[in-house]
């Protein structure tokens, strides 16, 4: 793996900065020329801007986030039951009303808020725990690692949703925070395994050894030397945990085990089921929350895919390279037809 990295980087040097690389190889001029001021971050941003996958995903997620922030300000109280019940979409109620006379649009807007908050909270909990159990264990090694990875493995094999159902079943008054906490507790183990392996591999990198020789303390090595190199991985895991949480919460609420008294897309679906929306042909009651759940899941996944491409340049470099060669070949052929090629001079001795 390390070899490959070096090879990759050598090829990259050959392919990208060959002008400077050559000059250096020949003359090792000590003065550094041709500044490439673009930092890693800026290059990532540049790539992301060009990626249609990211643009689509970010667009969807951004739209839903805006809806969650501003929607509730523009709609009526989602628990106002004075409307006529089970009305199909109309100019008064754009998305109709529920069996209890709630305005669907209002429900949906507040639901978006609830679902996204749960998503973010769960993702934050999951990533923090996976850092603690994965990165710290992976770097420190020894008994600490043994114990942390034992806990990780136990959490990994406990089936998440049944555990949540059992815990939720015991609790009567369930707040949004409680649900988020339970979901967070079951969402981190997979990420921790990945992070642990990464941290173990980074731990053996020379730059970590060099930091130790400099006198750097373990804590600082983990958080300053190792963690920044894992940032793209954290971002991917955060988004993944969000998708998991939003879907998980919807599932729980649908089963009637969600947060009591709160509104999320899951509780709307649960209401629709209890109110027999399907048999009553009230499609506006269950289709919109379903579509939004699918959209937010799809949008976050699209962002995740484009982050994958940043982490693993091969995923995007190969197709781009093929394309550029195809283009270049065409121009070469054109030159041939124009008759510029064809003179052969033997220079060889």
């Amino acid at each position, binding site marked *: 793996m*390390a070899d490959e990295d*070096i090879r990759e*980087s050598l090829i990259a040097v050959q392919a990208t900065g060959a002008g*400077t*690389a050559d000059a*250096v*190889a*020949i003359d*090792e001029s*000590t*003065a*550094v020329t041709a*500044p*490439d001021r673009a*930092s*890693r971050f800026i290059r990532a941003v540049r790539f992301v801007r060009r990626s249609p996958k990211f643009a689509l995903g970010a667009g969807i997620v951004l739209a839903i986030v805006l809806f969650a922030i501003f929607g509730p300000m523009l709609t009526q109280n989602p628990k106002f039951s004075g409307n006529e019940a089970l009305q199909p979409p109309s100019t008064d109620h754009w998305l109709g009303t529920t069996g209890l006379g709630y305005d669907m649009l209002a429900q949906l807007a507040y639901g978006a808020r609830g679902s996204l908050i749960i998503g973010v909270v769960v993702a934050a909990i999951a990533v923090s725990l996976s850092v603690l159990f994965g990165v710290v264990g992976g770097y420190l090694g020894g008994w600490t690692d043994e114990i942390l990875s034992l806990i990780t493995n136990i959490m990994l094999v406990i089936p998440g949703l049944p555990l949540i159902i059992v815990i939720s079943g015991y609790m009567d008054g369930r707040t949004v925070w409680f649900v988020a906490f339970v979901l967070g507790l079951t969402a981190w183990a997979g990420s921790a395994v990945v992070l642990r392996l990464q941290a173990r591999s980074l731990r053996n*990198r*020379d*730059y970590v*050894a*060099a*930091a*130790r*020789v*400099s*006198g*750097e303390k373990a804590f600082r090595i983990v958080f300053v*030397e190792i963690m*920044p*190199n894992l940032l793209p991985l954290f971002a991917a895991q955060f988004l993944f945990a969000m998708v998991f949480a939003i879907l998980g919460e919807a599932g729980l609420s649908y089963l009637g085990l969600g947060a009591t008294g709160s509104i999320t897309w899951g509780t709307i679906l649960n209401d629709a089921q209890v109110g027999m929306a399907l048999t009553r042909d009230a499609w506006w009651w269950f289709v919109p929350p379903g579509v939004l759940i699918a959209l937010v899941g799809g949008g976050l996944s699209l962002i995740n895919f484009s982050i994958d491409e940043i982490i693993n340049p091969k995923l995007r470099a190969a197709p781009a390279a093929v394309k550029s060669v195809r283009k270049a070949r065409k121009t070469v052929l054109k030159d041939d037809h124009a008759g510029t090629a064809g003179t052969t001079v033997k220079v060889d001795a």
Partner: protein
Amino acid sequence: MKNLEVKHVVKDFRLAGGRGKKFRAVDDVSFTLEPGKTIALVGESGSGKSTVARMIAKLEVPTSGDIMLDGKASATRGRALDSYRHDVQMVFQDPFASLNPFHTIRHHLERPLRLHGKAKTTAEVDEQVAHLLERVNLTPASTVALRRPHELSGGQRQRVAIARALAPGARFLIADEPVSMLDVSIRLSVLNLLARLQREDNLGVLYITHDLATARHFSDEIMVMFKGKVVERGPSDEVIMNPQHEYTKLLLSAAPNPENQGKLRAEVLAEMNLGEQASDRDRFGTRGM
């Protein structure tokens, strides 16, 4: 008594799998590194030379034996270790791996400066970083400091690594194959840079290498390691021109030498004429290596 003394150092590694099975990577190695002097530790991969380096750099703990700095046993932890690191620093083999891709060159030099109390304020750091970069011929220092490792060539990165090792004000430098990953045409310049810094700071240098030619030209004394043991030691010219141990002779005969142009072909042809199939050149069981 200002020196770095390695006394009867042994390192065993537990082998994965076999219970209690051990592999002796370093077997009773002793030597004394003096200020201003260079000792070359020569050997092939697996000879244990890098393990010796890592033990001196306190990245590995010896199974037995002592590493003494100025006549005092060195610590393995705590404040005493910090002060040991102040005096003994290391340059790693691969400059592509030994610099953190995420951080700027400045960060790499700032940390040891701050950790060892060489600079406290930002202005001091700036000044010291610039000074260090100039010492390793990386100019303009202010521009170089803001770069990240991937923007520099291998040789430039290795200079940064050398500057980092000098930052705490080290008196002893462990250079683990410092030029083997660099392009050939810049190797000598980096070695010469090390030699100049050595002279300026009166550094004691342990130069670890597999290359006998540079070992000869850049060190006062050569130690040849084979399977964890030092099999031959002496003044560099003496070891190269008049090798005593069979393994040293083998290493010398295996090193490419332009003077031997056509010799290999002649040998092979002669052998084929004699109808020899497998030659008995395998004195050290290296055929399977």
